[in-house]
């Protein structure tokens, strides 16, 4: 008889989530397609004024990616909660926080990463100047895991409730505002040719903090949620 080592457990869980995501790759593609739809419809909604589009391109891409992520966030624990897998995970002899960290990682890999990959495409659909591209990508690389991590805590909090949808959105809003402010700040500075490291550094610091604290908070929240 052998206890499962933590690393093995993490690998098993990560692998499971990635395989599941691959099996349901249609659902991964959803946020990406959603972002594409937004980017496609935008010129129709505003009329084909190139200068206008160019001006708002960076912000729109950021916003779209963030919103597409929020879309997928709701499903982070839903499947596992409904079929009893979450109970099995909580009852396993592994510490919960790193396990949840793995789930969040898998979620980021399967929802945010594809979005980041197509972000340059979206940006050029909206005629974002190429000079701003590095800032956009860097901002997304830092902002998306931050949203994943913080969002996961909120999703865990609402996991035990019936009305999760609204609550989640309610609680996510205050969280997204600062992330958005810093990311958009970096982007705007880059678009104007100003230095944009300061807001990026802030995002990085917040991310470092969240990587450590969010899984713990998530575990605590989930235990509260399951106790019903």
């Amino acid at each position, binding site marked *: 008889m052998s206890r499962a080592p933590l690393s093995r457990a993490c690998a098993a869980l990560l692998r499971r989530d990635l395989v599941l995501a691959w099996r349901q790759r249609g659902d991964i593609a959803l946020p990406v397609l959603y972002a594409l739809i937004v980017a496609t419809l935008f010129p129709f909604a505003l009329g084909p004024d190139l200068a206008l589009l160019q001006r708002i391109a960076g912000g729109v891409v950021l916003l779209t990616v963030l919103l597409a992520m929020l879309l997928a966030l709701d499903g982070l624990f839903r499947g596992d909660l409904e079929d009893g897998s979450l109970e099995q995970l909580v009852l396993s002899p592994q510490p919960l926080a790193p396990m949840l960290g793995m789930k969040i990682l898998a979620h980021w890999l399967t929802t945010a990463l594809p979005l980041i990959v197509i972000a340059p495409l979206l940006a050029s659909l909206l005629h974002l100047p190429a000079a701003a591209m590095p800032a956009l990508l860097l901002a997304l690389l830092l902002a998306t895991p931050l949203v994943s991590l913080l969002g996961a*805590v*909120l999703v865990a*909090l*609402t996991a*035990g*409730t*019936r*009305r*999760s949808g*609204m*609550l989640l959105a*309610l*609680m996510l*809003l*205050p969280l997204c*505002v600062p992330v958005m402010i810093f990311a958009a700040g970096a982007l705007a500075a880059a678009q104007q040719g100003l230095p944009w490291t300061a807001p990026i550094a802030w995002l990085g610091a917040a991310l470092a903090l969240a990587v450590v604290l969010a899984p713990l*908070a998530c575990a*605590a*929240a989930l235990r*509260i*949620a399951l*106790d*019903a």
Partner: protein
Amino acid sequence: MSTWIPLWLHRLGSPPTFYAFAGRLRPWAIGLALLLGIVALYGGLVLAPPDRYQGDDYRIIFIHVPSAWMSLFIYAVMGVASFVALVWRIKLAEVVAMESAPVGAAFTFITLATGSLWGERMWGTWWTWDARLTSELVLLFLYLGVIGLYHAFEDRRQGARAAGFLAIVGVVNVPIVHFSVKWWNTLHQGSTVNLFGQSHIAGDMLWPLLTMMLATKCYYVASLCGRARADLLALEGGKDWVRRIAAGEAR
């Protein structure tokens, strides 16, 4: 002295005792609130002269500012009570935290509404996305999140734990609201009333403002008492003392 206070607190922590205590405190608190409120309104609306620059419009200050202060104060109370509830699992702390939220949300809403009305006149727009206004809006969302989370759980105590958790996380926003005018340059004006130093406001405007602040504090206490009583009834629905009340009011 050092022994009876904990003892008294412990006794008060028992739900039926607190229920009775809150019932007795409530009329006094609301009476005082009304009295102070009337005095403050008389002072603010009638006695205080029109402002040199703003005319009579500034009179919104007498509700805007006390409400704004209360919105922050109540959040702080809620945060502390949530912390106590999560760490020591005291039922009454849960009740205080969760029942503070709607009152706080009400004051936050008032702040936003009166600020908008005032802004429409002063800044020519009822809303801009500056730091103070936005962080106050975020405060409202936090309150609503706490309320929603609390009621979303079937089990109230579980809901209180989850919502308390959220409340504690959200405490970060309180200093942001307060210092936003200092940290970022905003349309909203900076601090004019200073409790400890020199206030930049005329005396006959200051005293109604401070009186109104006391009135809103008293109102909070009174409202909290009423809400906590109702919540205790829900929370202790299976206990005999509540069933006696239920049976008593059926007649």
